[in-house]
């Protein structure tokens, strides 16, 4: 191999590795869906996952939404004033929060909180032989660990996005009314009149997809964790990075699908 072909070989190796990883993740996702529709289903683990992933993520998703809505209102007001469009603050805040920032930022926060904890928990279970113990106790690890978490995240995330939407709009409203001299009734009326059902609905669908991605990445990297503390640390880091990148990439694809002219 000479100096000319070596970079090409490296590039080819990187592409093949990436495709192989994509294949492994796709097979894992397929296996998760296959186990989802076949009994047994572990309700207790599902409800526990709903609590951990959905309910306990509410504070972080809520605070993210409030501050994002508030900052968005200030930015739109400052930017809009350059061409006398300050009055569109309520509409743009509502649109930005429901279609994009609510689902994407909420999902990124959930990825940081949930993908990491799932990967660390399952990774630790793997290195301490708890996954092997599950198998010897006639319990399939995919059914017991992956399916409840993925389903809980897929169903919880739209609810978190809905709460985030409301709080994000409220954040914008607070800034609009207290700092930007909007009349309360005008702000609310403009928001309500402008928003369409699909603005909110598309964000909820995105939320479900992002929830699936977050839990799937947590479980995948946890199940494939290396040995020892370093292996679990690596799995946790990879889960958060992969979930975050996939959220942003799938957000673009879904936006193309839903709103491309």
């Amino acid at each position, binding site marked *: 191999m000479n100096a000319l072909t070596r970079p090409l070989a490296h590039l080819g190796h990187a592409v093949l590795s990436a495709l192989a990883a994509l294949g492994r993740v796709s097979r894992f996702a397929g296996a998760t869906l296959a186990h989802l529709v076949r009994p047994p289903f572990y309700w207790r683990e599902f409800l526990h996952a709903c609590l951990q992933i959905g309910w306990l993520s509410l504070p972080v998703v809520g605070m993210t939404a409030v501050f994002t809505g508030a900052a968005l209102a200030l930015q739109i007001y400052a930017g809009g004033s350059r061409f006398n469009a300050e009055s569109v603050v309520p509409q743009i805040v509502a649109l930005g929060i429901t279609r994009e920032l609510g689902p994407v930022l909420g999902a990124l926060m959930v990825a940081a909180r949930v993908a990491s904890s799932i990967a660390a928990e399952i990774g630790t279970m793997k290195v301490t032989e*708890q996954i*092997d113990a599950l198998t010897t106790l006639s319990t399939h690890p995919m059914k017991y660990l992956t399916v409840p978490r993925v389903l809980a995240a897929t169903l919880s995330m739209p609810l978190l996005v809905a709460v985030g939407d409301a709080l994000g709009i409220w954040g914008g409203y607070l800034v609009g009314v207290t700092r930007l001299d909007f009349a309360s009734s005008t702000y609310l009326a403009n928001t309500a009149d402008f928003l369409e059902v699909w603005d909110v609905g598309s964000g909820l669908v995105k939320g479900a997809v992002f929830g699936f991605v977050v839990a799937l990445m947590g479980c995948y990297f946890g199940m494939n964790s290396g040995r020892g503390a370093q292996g679990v640390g690596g799995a946790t880091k990879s889960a958060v990075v992969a979930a975050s990148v996939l959220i942003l990439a799938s957000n673009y694809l879904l936006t193309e699908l839903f709103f491309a002219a």
Partner: protein
Amino acid sequence: MIRITDLHKSFGTNAVLRGVDLHVPKGESMVIIGGSGTGKSVLLKCILGLVTPDSGIIEVDGQDVTKVKRDAFLARFGMLFQGGALFDSLSVWQNVAFRLLRGPGRLPKAEARAAAIEKLRRVGLTPEVADQFPAELSGGMQKRVGLARAIAAEPEIIFFDEPTTGLDPIMAGVINALIREIVEEMGATAMTITHDMSSVRAIADRVAMLHGGKIRWSGPVAELDATPDPYVQQFIHGRAEGPIESVR
């Protein structure tokens, strides 16, 4: 009961098992000895299907383990893992009753709890331990809970993976005695892997030594000390000098 024929398993270029042949008769306690990294755990995991062998045949009661229904097959086994492998998120009694609370033959919660407490008592733990979590227990107590979980569903075959590793000599003696008592009481077939010679003498009916990926020697425990095999002699006496290479 368990028959292993020409079993091979490699991890990359590392050939761990290179043609293992072994027979464990029903109701017998077989102890596999051998140095660290000789493939003892891999052998157990191959039998349970946790590791897929490259080639060879594993039969339990004459049936190829790759052709049996997995759940029914695994229901015949109990296993005590080296580190206990207790589920951190479940209380002690839920760990012990894990199999009793799930699957086709599941028991009502109260009955499963009572059965778990009975098994805990059998391994010398009081009912007060039942509602604690594994992280609150000492290493010896965790081993006992692992043992209680392994025997909870009255399995026909029990595997013990390094049952005394990490325990002080007195606790190791207690665990060894418990294992022997329980295996005799249940009439179970047992396979133990260890490099602790006190465990071997306490638990074994027969001993097999795994070295170089093959069974180097096997025979009744009473013949262990008398065998002229230099590998066995070096191992059981813990000598640095001998045919088994040691890294210094």
